[in-house]
């Protein structure tokens, strides 16, 4: 009788550490893993700030060219000339704008673990929605349409 009781007690005591291990493993699995280094993130943030400044400087000029119908937004998220007529100062502005946009898309893509093309297309969708009446938009078919 007592030996049987002893055996049962030993079995119970043997299971207790196993259940404690299981609880510890479950708690460890729930803990979120953070492996990303902070240095690359802060460097990207600094670069984004710098880019934002450049976009702010060009914003009014690009907006004026859009309202004049000289340039328009494309479905890929870039700015392009509507006709073959490309004034020299506007050409430089458009080139700088697109270069910075490409870098912006690359930085955001790295942050969100996706592609720059996807980021560009999401920005195009935003710009198409925000475009003022009379501005030109280039669709996937390559044709320019004037926003009503």
């Amino acid at each position, binding site marked *: 009788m007592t030996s049987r*009781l002893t055996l*049962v*007690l030993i*079995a*119970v005591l043997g*299971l*207790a550490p*196993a*259940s404690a291990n*299981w609880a510890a493993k479950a708690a460890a699995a729930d803990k979120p893993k953070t492996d990303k280094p902070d240095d690359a993130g802060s460097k990207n943030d600094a670069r*984004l700030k710098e880019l*934002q400044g450049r*976009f*702010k400087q060009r*914003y*009014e000029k690009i907006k004026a060219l859009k309202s004049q119908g000289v340039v328009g937004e494309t479905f890929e998220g870039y700015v392009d000339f509507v006709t073959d007529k490309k004034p020299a100062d506007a050409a430089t502005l458009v080139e700088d704008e697109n270069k910075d946009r490409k870098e*912006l898309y690359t930085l*955001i893509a790295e*942050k*969100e*673990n*996706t592609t720059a093309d*996807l*980021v560009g297309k*999401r*920005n195009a969708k*935003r710009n198409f929605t*925000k475009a003022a009446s009379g501005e030109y938009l280039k669709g996937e078919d390559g044709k320019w349409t004037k926003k009503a």
Partner: protein
Amino acid sequence: MIAPLLMMQACARVHVDPIEVKPIHIIHDINIRVDRQLDDFFAFEAQKGAAQPAVSTTQPTTAPAPSPTTTTAGGSI
């Protein structure tokens, strides 16, 4: 005697199936995060748009002259 047996039953292992995240949810999440990043980055465009005066297409109306303000001593709530 019965209590240890009951305790053994309480220590039963529970097996949980792993949570499966469907691919469409991942794409939807990425789109939302990218849109948020772009909105934050280009927030200055909305601020500049709000700073510009709105163009009114209605005819100007004559506003009534403002009445002089009078102050009363002691107010009641």
